[in-house]
């Protein structure tokens, strides 16, 4: 019930009057044209929609503010007449029983926000459809200008901000190398680029990096986060599953520049596409990346419900940028997503074969055609052997029956159990069990007992009877199983003959089966797909997601991509482009990127190239204090940003610098050194962690074994997500565990001492030369005087100390599996290990700027 404004008393009316009569001289922010999506919706959403928004079941006073007609009909908003609008009355009320938002919500509108709402109503209360649900519009850009620079520049001009100068070439190549390949450039790369006089030197460098096989690795990291790729199942025992070929598929897709629409379709429906093949089926492992459990006592229906919601959340996070998961228990509070939408999306996945509880199957064999043929041949041989054996089984069984009868009838003691036997203990044990079982009636023997007797009869009593057939079968079985065991497998999507029944679960309660049965359907608030006369399937869903008129997908993907190159999305909240997200600072830029992405036929490399060749991208990240004060979070892009690189890249940079990095692309996940006992809280089964040796020890960070419940501690320290949930945006923390890992993790001690050996061997003869050389390897620049003055004494203090304590030197330079450097004095090496270690620990080393 909305109280009549007539009753309203107090200060609010004067405020509103003052506001409506505000002189033109008012502050600029009070006179700028109000945009509903930018200025008003965020206020209404955060403060009002929870009770007066899309969720009908929770709606208070039957008042709905997210739909203009309803807000007006209720009298909450009287367009043009702020003073008559109960909304204004209530937000200005000083009565705790009347004021909105109510005190118990702990929400509060400040004076500026109150005034803005009142002014918006006074100016006619113009609504806009939520920006992200409108089709993106591609801004026209003057010929010969780059769209990004044009759009960013136009806004900077209105704000009176000036773009920063282009960064120097060393910074540019370092930035590009980290952003495009995740690996620092070599000093030679830097030198070549710095000295390249050609006008397109930068563009050539970009092309070269885009063509690097490491580009796919770099791009994969963010994708693997958002799809929650991991080597283990997640819940409880957190056991391994076969999934790594999917990771390699992602790397390949980026390297091959697979159009993003096709990339999407293959992952959601690689089993359903007309040209389905091994590659598209591996892609469909996407549908299997969710958390599963093997816990005893887990209820199938409970986990079926968890899996459905997990998959719907994933679609929301990966492509739609919508917090759809909220609608699993009730209609969405802020966005027009209904519970029906939620379950209808879930129903698209009802045909995916997935055990609710228990160990995952091996999955599809991933192998080249010749190996698949060999497997088929071995299967055929096995089938034939089995058939031949089958033909003689009745005779074997008859013989066994006769033997059993004789043994029992004549009370024969088995040879192994006679006093004069020479049988081994194991043989005696087997025979004892067989003798015991023989005393049981056939019908009362269990499966294992029957099998044991059969085995005993066939191998011990009458080993020669149909020996050929038995051996042939055993061999065929072993050959087949050995070969099969050696092959790579991957969980993939297999379509069930009959999809599971999906019901709306009231309040998300899986035990409540009273809800309506729901068929696959597209969310009602988004453009529908043109499918008539049949039920849409997963392939339709995938095609709908990447259809040209879908307003969300391209924006979501471009917003995430922007973050990779600028540190923050154009809309800061990467996983929510809904009402509670952030309206983009540069809506026209995000729209331009989204349109260009689609117009280019979803060409990812084209978009990356477009972004990194912009002047906006090439700016320096160092700016005068005044410029930083004007825009502390750098949302306006008058400069570049600096940030500590992702966990994987911290590792990669150290390995690359030391020379230890093994640059193989793809393959099974690897196990870098990890503290003993780190997995002590895992069980079923208890697990040890044998660190990989040889080449597998020195692989890039993205190949690290991803144990969801206990992610490698160095990865975790640098904010790699556990990937239990989709993660569109990693946090970027700065914590003591990072210092401890970089200082003391054997991986980093080893890279330091191996790098130290290079410093001694390749860095020249004097300490100064060596330091300069090391600086160039790590930072691609020469040390400054003060840096030399800091490092030289360090070296000079460590060297005599180790000369006096050779045992300590010997142990330090042996950390890790890498062979000890030959022909280098241990004390010398230890001292340089310290210098190398200091360099590898620097903030600048692990920072892209």
């Amino acid at each position, binding site marked *: 019930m909305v109280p009549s404004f007539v009753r309203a008393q107090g200060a609010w009316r004067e405020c509103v009057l003052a506001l409506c009569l505000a002189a033109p001289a008012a502050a600029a922010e009070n006179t700028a044209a109000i945009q509903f999506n930018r200025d008003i919706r965020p206020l209404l959403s955060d403060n009002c929609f929870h009770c007066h928004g899309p969720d009908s079941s929770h709606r208070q006073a039957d008042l709905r503010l997210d739909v203009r007609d309803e807000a007006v009909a209720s009298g909450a908003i009287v367009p043009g007449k702020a003073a008559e609008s109960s909304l204004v009355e209530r937000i200005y009320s000083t009565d705790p029983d009347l004021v909105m938002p109510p005190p118990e919500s702990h929400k509060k509108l400040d004076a500026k926000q109150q005034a803005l709402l009142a002014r918006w109503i006074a100016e006619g209360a113009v609504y806009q459809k939520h920006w992200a649900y409108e089709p993106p519009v591609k801004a026209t850009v003057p010929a010969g200008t780059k769209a990004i620079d044009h759009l960013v520049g136009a806004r900077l001009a209105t704000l009176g901000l000036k773009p920063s100068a282009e960064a120097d070439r060393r910074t540019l190549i370092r930035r590009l190398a980290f952003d495009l390949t995740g690996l620092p450039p070599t000093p030679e790369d830097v030198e070549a680029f710095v000295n390249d006089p050609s006008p397109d030197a930068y563009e050539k460098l970009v092309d070269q990096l885009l063509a690097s096989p490491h580009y796919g690795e770099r791009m994969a990291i963010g994708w693997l986060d958002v799809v929650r790729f991991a080597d283990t199942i997640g819940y409880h025992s957190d056991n391994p599953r076969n999934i790594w070929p999917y990771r390699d598929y992602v790397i390949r897709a980026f390297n091959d520049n697979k159009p993003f629409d096709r990339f999407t379709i293959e992952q959601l429906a690689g089993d359903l596409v007309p040209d389905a093949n091994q590659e598209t089926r591996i892609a469909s492992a996407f549908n299997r990346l969710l958390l599963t459990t093997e816990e005893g006592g887990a209820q199938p229906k409970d986990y079926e419900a968890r899996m459905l919601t997990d998959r719907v959340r994933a679609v929301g996070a990966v492509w739609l940028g919508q*917090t759809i998961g909220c609608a699993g228990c009730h209609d969405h509070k802020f966005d027009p997503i209904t519970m029906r939408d939620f379950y209808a999306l879930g129903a698209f996945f009802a045909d995916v074969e997935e055990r609710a509880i228990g160990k995952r199957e091996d999955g599809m064999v991933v192998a080249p055609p010749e190996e698949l043929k060999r497997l088929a041949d071995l299967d055929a041989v096995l089938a034939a052997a089995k058939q031949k054996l089958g033909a003689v089984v009745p005779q074997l069984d008859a013989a066994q029956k006769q033997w059993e009868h004789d043994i029992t009838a004549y009370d024969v003691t088995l040879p192994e159990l006679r006093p004069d036997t020479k049988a081994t203990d194991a043989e005696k044990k087997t025979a004892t069990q067989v003798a015991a079982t023989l005393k049981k009636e056939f019908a009362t023997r269990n499966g294992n007992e029957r099998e044991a007797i059969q085995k005993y009869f066939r191998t011990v009593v009458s080993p020669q009877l149909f020996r050929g057939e038995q051996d042939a079968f055993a061999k065929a079985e072993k050959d087949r199983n050995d070969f099969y065991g050696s092959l790579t497998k991957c969980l993939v999507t297999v379509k069930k003959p009959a999809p599971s029944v999906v019901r709306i679960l009231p309040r998300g309660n899986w035990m409540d089966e009273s809800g309506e049965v729901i068929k696959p359907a597209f969310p009602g608030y988004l453009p529908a797909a043109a499918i008539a006369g049949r039920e849409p399937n997963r392939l339709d869903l995938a095609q709908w997601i990447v259809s040209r008129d879908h307003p969300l997908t391209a924006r979501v993907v471009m917003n995430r991509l922007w973050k990779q190159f600028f540190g923050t999305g154009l809309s800061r909240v990467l996983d929510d482009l809904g009402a509670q997200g952030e309206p983009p600072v540069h809506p026209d830029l995000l729209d331009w990127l989204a349109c260009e992405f689609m117009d280019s036929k979803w060409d990812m490399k084209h978009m990356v190239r477009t972004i990194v060749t912009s002047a906006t991208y090439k700016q320096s990240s160092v700016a005068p204090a005044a410029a930083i004060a004007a825009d502390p979070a750098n949302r306006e892009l008058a400069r570049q940003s600096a940030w500590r690189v992702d966990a994987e890249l911290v590792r990669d940079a150290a390995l690359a610098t030391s020379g230890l990095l093994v640059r193989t692309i793809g393959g099974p996940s690897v196990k870098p050194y990890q503290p003993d006992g780190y997995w002590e809280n895992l069980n079923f089964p208890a697990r040890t962690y044998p660190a990989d040796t040889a080449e597998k020890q020195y692989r890039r960070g993205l190949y690290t074994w991803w144990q969801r419940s206990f992610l490698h501690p160095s990865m975790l320290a640098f904010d790699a997500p556990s990937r*239990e949930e989709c993660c569109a945006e990693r946090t970027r923390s700065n914590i003591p565990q990072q210092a401890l890992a970089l200082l003391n993790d054997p991986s980093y001690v080893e890279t330091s001492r191996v790098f130290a050996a290079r410093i001694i061997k390749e860095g020249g003869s004097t300490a100064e030369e060596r330091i300069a050389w090391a600086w160039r390897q790590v930072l691609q620049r020469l040390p400054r*005087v003060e840096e030399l003055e800091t490092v030289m004494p360090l070296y000079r*203090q460590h060297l005599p100390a180790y000369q006096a304590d050779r045992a300590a030197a010997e142990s*330090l330079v042996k950390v890790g599996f890498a062979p000890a450097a030959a022909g280098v004095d241990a004390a010398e090496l230890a001292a340089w290990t310290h210098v190398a270690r200091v360099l590898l620990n620097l903030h600048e080393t692990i920072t892209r700027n």
Partner: protein
Amino acid sequence: MTAEQLRHAIARRAFLGKTAQGVGAVALASLACPQPASAAPLRGVLAPPPLPQRAKRVIWLTMAGGPSHLETFDHKPKLAELDGQPMPESMTKGQQLAQLQGQKLVCFGPQHAFKPMGPNGTHLCELFPQIGSVLGDICLIRSMTTDAINHDPAHMFMNTGSQIAGRPSMGSWVTYGLGSESADLPGFVVLTSLGKGGQNQPIAARQWSSGFLPSRYQGVQLRGKGDPVLYLGNPAGMTRDRQGLDIAAINALNAQHDALTGDPEIATRIAQYEMAFAMQASVPGLMDMAAESPQTLDLYGCRPGDGSFASNCLLARRLAERGVRFIQLYHKDWDHHGGVKEGITYKAQEIDRACMALITDLKNRGMLDNTLIVWAGEFGRTPMSQGGSGRDHHNKAMSVWLAGGGIKGGLVYGSTDDLGYAAVEKVCTVHDLHATMLNQLGIRHDAFTVKFQGLDAKLTGVEGANVLTDILA
């Protein structure tokens, strides 16, 4: 810097090297031992806390695996009478069960006798006389319930108020809100111990994850074996002095870089290296119990470093003394699907004295008043038999207890039905427990929010929660 400039620099360096220690060396000498004072305790976002703060810290004793309330703290003579008889179907029909789903349900009487203990003659299982001796300081809640019924989601729910991964655990929430009082230890510390019996359910690191809160609020596990904190120990051959020199150099170089770039992250990184160096000294000091008196060790009944629950309780007190905000102990092996009789006997031997000792020790030191101790599993167990000797997971009834931190001692709150199947009187939820704990820490649970995925996310969830005001002193 050009090569020419470098040559110049090298020449200058050589000169300095011959004539004096050089500024670098002087700077280095002064930096060689980063000052502990320079490391500041973690600040919280709620400063000061909005409500009166009755508890400054929490020690949460998590009995992992799901302790049977029927063999610990919930006295059910009627269940003993019905031992072996069918469970009344009216009670269990259509309800969520774990491994017993779809099986014949038979009452299984308590496997140990109960005795009156404490000032009010409260009946506890006779295996817990030590806890019984401090019942005057304990509020026993017999009417706790939870949503989840499998270990992993149930722990998540108990720790984060949600069954979906990715939410902060309570220790992270509390440190985020209140910060820490320790400058050289993490604000949220986790210890685990394993008992006899072998029902060693896994515990994922997500249970002490900071979820969507910044990583510096995540729980740091103190380990019994190896480095107590991961990567705490120096590499082979490296002394503390040598480590200190390197850290001094790293910080000096970072400071120089800061002067050129003005990146605020650099100052933070310098502080983190100082903190890391401080922790390398403080954690071994924390773990070294040589200064503990024989009387104290006898009180807890442990030998230092034996990795037992009792030893962890003593460590918890030491952490509390050092200003750590949230200390969570996991003691595993409470998952008694079979052999609950023997299983509980083991558990009682492992925890009974230790719990009493922790309460007594804190009380003697005047710290119980402002330390909130919580004893809880992730769910309770069925009054029905599983396999003739055990009990299945159960979420409709469990017993938990609280002590200190402004909680009323000597109180029994709530009750279950005659068979211990479901909480019936003063039914509490996990969210109520969280709300009450936050309240004692001075935090309004319904106002303590962080924006996540569009919602004002709260530890106490969206369904609402009540502070259990009846149990507050």
